[in-house]
């Protein structure tokens, strides 16, 4: 018999980027930009990425890890305030197993000539498949990728 469990957790990561809030926002809002820092990782094989960036719109990313396990993000935008705030809910699957459901808030605030980004994630981890510390580690690495992307300048 399957033992069902839910572990609730919240974590917050604060970052400063040397880029204006509108450039940081564009890195989340535009598919070609987001694909470069969010949907591609060395050694991982991206299978599908769709981004319908509007309230009620869906984002879907399916990506195979080096070990072959397919990680699927399926999200929905709950709130968007251009250059200021993005809120989305999403679930994660490893292959066919749903491992978590989350609500993520990304807040952007002008900080000198750059941007302070406050990333808050409220999670429900399912059936012992993932932990807050693993999720936070993965998120920190994504926000590093965003810094690297912003440092390279914008694509045309």
């Amino acid at each position, binding site marked *: 018999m399957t033992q069902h469990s839910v572990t609730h957790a919240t974590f917050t990561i604060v970052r400063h980027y040397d880029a204006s809030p509108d450039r940081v926002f564009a890195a989340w809002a535009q598919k070609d930009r987001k694909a470069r820092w969010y949907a591609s990782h060395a050694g991982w094989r991206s299978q599908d990425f769709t981004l319908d960036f509007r309230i009620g719109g869906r984002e879907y990313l399916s990506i195979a890890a080096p070990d072959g396990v397919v990680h699927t993000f399926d999200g929905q935008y709950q709130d968007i305030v251009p250059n200021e705030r993005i809120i989305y809910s999403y679930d994660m699957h490893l292959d066919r197993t749903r491992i978590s459901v989350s*609500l993520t808030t990304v807040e952007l605030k002008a900080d000198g000539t750059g941007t302070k980004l406050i990333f808050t994630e409220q999670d429900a981890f399912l059936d012992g498949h993932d932990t807050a510390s693993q999720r936070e580690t993965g998120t920190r690495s994504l926000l590093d990728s965003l810094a690297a992307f912003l440092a390279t300048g914008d694509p045309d």
Partner: protein
Amino acid sequence: MTDRSVTHATFVIERVYDASPARVFKAFSDPAARNRWFVKADNWPIAEYTFDFRVGGRETGRFSPDGTMMVYNETIYQDIVPDNRMIFAYSMMIGDKRISSSLATVELKPEGTKTRLFYTEQGAFLDGLDKVADREKGCRDLYEQLALELERSAAIA
């Protein structure tokens, strides 16, 4: 308004019902039952209501307490384990202002012939337009309505 703010908060409501997890689950999943204790809980006139109870399905409501102010609720069901748990994300709007986005988990645990329900809401309350304490009170009222619904359906059965 340019002063944007987000208040993140989590609250848990725990309630024991004199009904099996299957009966409690049915009060969430059955449109007629849900209509009685959830949709019509406040006796607000309903302008619009849709309900699609499955993973990826949506529930939307448009209500007006006073005939002028419109309140919107948009829910998407993220996870459903029959008789055991439901997880949904929902946003609330008043007029054209979004006041909150939340992640809500309902867990049903059998306790003898009864059910212990845990409602966990992880909310992002927006721009000072709603208060965590008000939301929690609203939810507590709803879970009292659920108790009345379960008493009514037991009396009929």
